């Protein structure tokens, strides 16, 4: 979070509104879609009013563009979604058991995991999916050093801590294989500490 980085790149000069709109089109499509779902029926009136609302929202409340955008690899996405739902059900059952069992919960842990990817979008997806799975919450994130800090609900011993850390890295790998660029997938082969820095997909 360098202070100087803010002004650079939010509006790469000259192209103005058209350039901004190009970045906002997926967002606008999503907003129109949500508008239709809220009304519950498809009609031209809904489409037009939804477009007007989406245009107003994107112009009046602009968001910084996500640099690089996402590429979707269908196989990787299927693996990611499959593992995600299995994880969701399994750890929800585990947490439910920990609330019910007579002994209560044992020790918790706060671990810091060094990530290998350097893209805002991918890190966001990793953090969101880790928080969605019960039993782990992302507490903090150091963007410069690329570390995530997680609170783990229940750990037995130090070996368990290491296995949770490996699980986080595996989750990262699945996310990168689902949404990453070829460079980022290649970066997975490096050890967490020595990955090449600055692939430059940082939102300024």
């Amino acid at each position: 979070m360098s202070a100087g980085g803010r002004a650079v790149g939010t509006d790469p000069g000259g192209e103005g509104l058209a350039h901004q709109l190009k970045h906002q089109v997926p967002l606008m499509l999503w907003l129109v879609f949500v508008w239709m779902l809220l009304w519950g029926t498809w009609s031209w009136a809904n489409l037009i009013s939804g477009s007007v609302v989406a245009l107003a929202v994107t112009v009046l409340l602009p968001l910084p563009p996500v640099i690089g955008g996402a590429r979707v690899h269908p196989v990787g996405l299927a693996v990611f979604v499959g593992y995600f739902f299995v994880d969701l059900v399994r750890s929800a059952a585990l947490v439910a058991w920990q609330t019910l069992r007579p002994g209560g919960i044992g020790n918790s842990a706060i671990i810091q995991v060094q990530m290998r990817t350097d893209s805002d979008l991918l890190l966001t997806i990793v953090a969101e999916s880790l928080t969605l799975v019960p039993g782990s919450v992302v507490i903090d994130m150091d963007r410069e050093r690329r570390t995530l800090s997680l609170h783990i609900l229940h750990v037995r011993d130090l070996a368990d801590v290491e296995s949770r850390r490996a699980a986080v890295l595996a989750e990262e790998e699945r996310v990168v294989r689902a949404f990453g660029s070829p460079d980022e997938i290649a970066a997975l082969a490096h050890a967490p500490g020595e990955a090449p820095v600055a692939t430059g997909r940082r939102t300024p």
Partner: protein
Amino acid sequence: MSDVDSVRDVVAVVLLLAGAFLCLTAGLGLVRFHDVLTRMHAGTKPQVLGILLIMIGGAIRLEGWSATWMLLLVAVFQMLTAPVSAHMISRVAYRRRHVRRDLLLVDELRTGEAADRLYRGDEPADAPPEEPATALEESRRDEGTLPPA
């Protein structure tokens, strides 16, 4: 009205019961767990899986696409927003020391308190510290990489 006659309905009712059970364990976890962070875990469980199960169950039972889409929309909203609020609350909870440190096996975030000077509270992620140069210098001094003034 409230009839259960086909396999579809049985599946839906089972999903609803599972979701309701997760809500019960959430309440139980809130009462039994020790600190804010662990209670947070109890909270995210029905927020994600419970709502998902109940919405799917509801979508199976309700006729008409309008209601089905809206239920799915609620589930999507929950899955997008629950991590954000959970993260914000747990971050503040850690910084306000609402943590039973004696029950933590390891705490790798507690390396020093230098970070607190740079990111003090729950400001937006792109907010610079008020005096970046001074704050950075001070935190370096705390870490020991710079000699004290």
